[in-house]
């Protein structure tokens, strides 16, 4: 094989190996820059996605507010008490308008586990991860003060937040909030029973 041919072969082999080497570097070289992509392969598509940035809208968001006064299909609130937890006079409902059954309790436990437990803990004593580690003052749901709350008051707290607690009406639809109310009532009842047990 002539020298020229050898050179050509070496160049070819190097050229062929280049992507592999680059790919390897992408994996192991440390850099503050984002990784190198040789083939974008639809990584970045020209479409608006949820929670993304927009160069068009003045607030830089792809997500828009629904126009005030519009009503989406399935979100007509014919029963206002169900979504506000208040009676027509603006007073909190004494009892939940949603009948408590096993399905509701299961749903409530499930949603509580996702949205409430990090602060209020599994038993509802306010000793969740956040209160333990970040020393966030958290309400003990088993406290007699909260046992005395009406269902409507608990619902209102979840809906609009209180003190450091944020509003949860956004991730939780009204029915789910009533499910959590039912679950909190269940925890309070269980706690009362346990204390009675202990007192005996």
């Amino acid at each position, binding site marked *: 094989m002539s020298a020229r041919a050898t050179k050509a072969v070496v160049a070819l082999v190097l050229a062929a190996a280049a992507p592999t080497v680059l790919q390897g570097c992408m994996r192991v070289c440390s850099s503050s820059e984002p*990784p190198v992509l040789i083939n974008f392969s639809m990584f970045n598509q020209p479409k608006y996605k949820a929670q993304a940035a*927009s160069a068009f809208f003045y607030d830089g968001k792809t997500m828009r*507010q629904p*126009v005030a006064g519009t*009503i989406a*299909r399935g979100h007509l609130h014919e029963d206002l008490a169900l979504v506000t937890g208040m009676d027509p006079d603006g007073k909190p409902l004494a009892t939940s308008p949603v009948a408590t059954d096993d399905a509701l309790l299961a749903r409530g436990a499930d949603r509580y586990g996702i949205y409430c437990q990090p602060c209020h803990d599994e038993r509802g004593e306010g000793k969740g991860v956040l209160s333990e580690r970040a020393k966030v003052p958290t309400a003990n749901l088993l406290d007699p003060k909260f046992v005395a709350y009406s269902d409507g008051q608990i619902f209102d707290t979840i809906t609009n937040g209180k003190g450091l607690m944020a509003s949860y009406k956004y*991730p939780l639809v009204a029915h789910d909030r009533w499910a959590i109310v039912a679950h909190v009532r269940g925890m309070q009842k269980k706690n009362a029973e346990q204390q009675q047990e202990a007192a005996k």
Partner: protein
Amino acid sequence: MTDYWRSLGELEGSPEFEAVRHREFLEGAADTPDGISRRTMLGLMGASLSLSGLAACRRPVEKIVPYVQAPEDMLPGIPQRYATTMPFRGNALGLLVVSNEGRPTKIEGNELHPATQGASNAFAQNAIYELYDPDRSRVVLQGGAEKTWADFLTYWKTLHAEHVADAGAGLAIVTEPSTSPTEARLVTLLKQRFSQARVVTWAPLGNENRQAGLRAATGAEIEPVYALDQARVILSLDGDFLQDDPDAIRMTRAYSAGRRDPAAMNRLYVAESTLSITGIAADHRLAIPSGAIAGFTLALATELGKLGVSVAGVSGGGTVFDAKWLSAVAKDLKANAGTSVIIAGAQQPPEVHAAVAALNAALGNAGKTVSYASAGTAARSRVADLQALAGDLKAGKIKTLVMLGGNPAYDAPADLDFATVAAKAANRIRVGLFVDETSAVADWHLPQAHFLESWGDARAIGGPLSVIQPLIEPLFAGHSVIEVLALLESAEEKPGYDLVRETWKPVLGGDFDKRWEKTLHDGVLAGSELAAQSLPAADMSTIAKLASFKAPQGLELVFLPSSVVYDGSASNSAWMQELPEPVSKLTWDNAALISKTDADGLGIHDGDLVTLALGDKSISAAALVLPGQAVGSVGIALGYGRTAAGRAGNGVGFNAYLLRTTKTLGFASGLTVTKAGGTHVLAVTHEHWSQEGRDIVREKDVAGHGHSAAGGHDEHDAHDAHDEHGGHGHPPLVSPWPERTYEEGPQWAMTIDLNSCVGCNACVIACQSENNIPSVGKDQVTRGREMHWIRIDRYFSGRPEAPESIVFQPVPCMHCENAPCEQVCPVAATVHGETGLNEMVYNRCIGTRYCSNNCPYKVRRFNFYNFTKDTPETLQMAYNPDVTVRARGVMEKCSYCVQRLTRATRDAKLGNRDMQDGEARTACQQACPAQAIEFGDIRDPKSRVTASKASPRRYDLLAELNSKPRTSYLSRVRNPNPELSA
């Protein structure tokens, strides 16, 4: 035995056609538009690759930008649906619009609204593109300089005071037809404030003749409401009621319902000049010039009189054309008196409409198959008003001209010379979605808000009232027509929300808020369907007046509404421009449609440039020979040849408005056609993807006599799909590898009923909108690179002068159980899913195109270029976030809307329940006004698709290949009149 053909090229075996029929991709399909060959391209790419380095190859940083104030009841990634209403040609279409995080992305029909009943059409689907059109007008302009609404308000206050002083004597407003109660209320207020002001309503395709005809026959301002599901015999006189009628969605639904049961099918007769989809649906079609319809109607009345129908005053006359045809139609109408209906086309003169109303009354159809409803407060187009206004403008009597929407400078009758006379007004104000031909005439251009951005209301044909809910705040600070009217009237800005609520307060009465919210939610006011009035004594003498129409001599020119860009208002939509016109399959153009006989006589071939001359006016246009076109008639679609439409619509096609005058709005006689020399490239999609004369479409008549391409074996239809032999003396079908069984989970499948399908194109645009399908442009279409995932083939049979039968066939991916494409993919980019879907993994695809070559149905589409790379920011909002936007070099095809199936499956799982039949619907199925598409789980014995698959009419495409398609067809059934079929 019937031979089907799709183009004259195929029928004649022309060398051009022979050259393409054996190729999967057309000649040059792999070449770049400017002629750089693939090899050169690779060289260039290599050079740029080595130069560019790696700087641009870093993964882009994506930021998460959440809501600060999250709206209630909304989760990012979970779409919402809002009921709203689209004002549409004097009708109102109830829609349900999908909104992703507050951005409308997809249009669907509102199943609670009588005008759509859950379906939609291509124009409704296109509303998304129109909303996000990057060429929409963005700012207030005065003489081309950027201004604000506040500047305009200051300007208007001075003019307002002047016009209050002269009681509006020099003020004229041109509006579009509207059925909005709020607009009617504001116009009344405006006329109170400016008693001398003129409000003129104009639309180039305004259905004025039908209204005038009914006025002549009954003396009332009424509109017809057809109940085609009650009709056994339908006669259409030059009326394309399945496509062009404002109420076409409801009429298609009812018409198809009347054909569902082969034992009790309706029968459709059509007499028309230019082949339309209604003509294609017809059991019997008679091709006669539009100018001869009046004479034909008179002959029909005479014939009916002979049969004993009381048509007083008719004493013979008229033009018979085909005595056998006429006699058969008349007998059928008489035999089905009370369950028959006659419909006349919008371009026919008022006299024909009056006579048709009288004939319907004489046959006892009024109140049964056709009823009449009051037109209420609707503003309807009147050409006489526009003519008077043009006269006053010319005489300098108009000081202030306000043009609200529409595009009169482009589409007004040519003899009015509207653009020139409008410029004589001192103050010219224009409100429009686009800076177009009319804006060029105005000194103030104000951006109009799209209906998806504004509050409003509308009334549908027959009475249903609904509110227009905005889906998003105006993108470009636009104001709606009602907001501008209120501003003109009061010289103050008033929000549309308040204006609409004020109108609705007396309508809804007590408990307003609750009833208002319910109306918004449902998308229609419950109980607002007015009791349709029956015909108030039609004047029979109107029929005899038809005798004044002479039989046409020589050639005529028929002005047709475009099935894709309508009157030009949809011109700038790349979706609509690329949508093949259903009959001619022409994209990105209009053409002078001419019969084969006339073309042969004049020596004209497809694509030849011809001069169309009417009197002293003439235009140049490309000719297209259309089978079934009436001899002596040339048809041309309006809405093309625009000069200021935007980047997609400018310079596309030929402007037929230049030949259209106030006297000849429908059609004109005395046309001369001469060859102009030169040719024009027409991007026609129908010669691609030949099916090589196999048994693709099947039809039979109700008596069971079949037509199919292979012919003579339709008795096997029922077994084909099920037997092991692929039918017809084929050796047993054996698969070379073990076949998979599908025994778990939902197994998706589809059926398409060719007997229901009318070929209206709604599914094609619905699919394009749902699946982020790019438009590729005329040049790419001529190379066979159009990207539609569902195409609608149409096959002719018989002679090109008078095709015997024409069948539409929508073709999406067949989702074969033994998919041939999967066997040849070297990188497993197309694989089979658990639910029976033939899936595409875009990231794996390296673009070998082997799959497409091996697909017997030719349903795969390849991204020859990065069609989506430079998508404008606003159009990025129109894309479905749940569907990948594909890049260059990737194969794609119908996915059965897998994102919808996944969502339905997941929702059922989260809800801890079984999925219901009909919960997962594909976009095409959802949009179909004819309900021709069934989709569902074939493992569910009770599902509609299972029932549909068990139909004796079911067959699979190319079943002899053992590909086992999941998509099946139900054969077409014709209901010919035995008297005529002999």
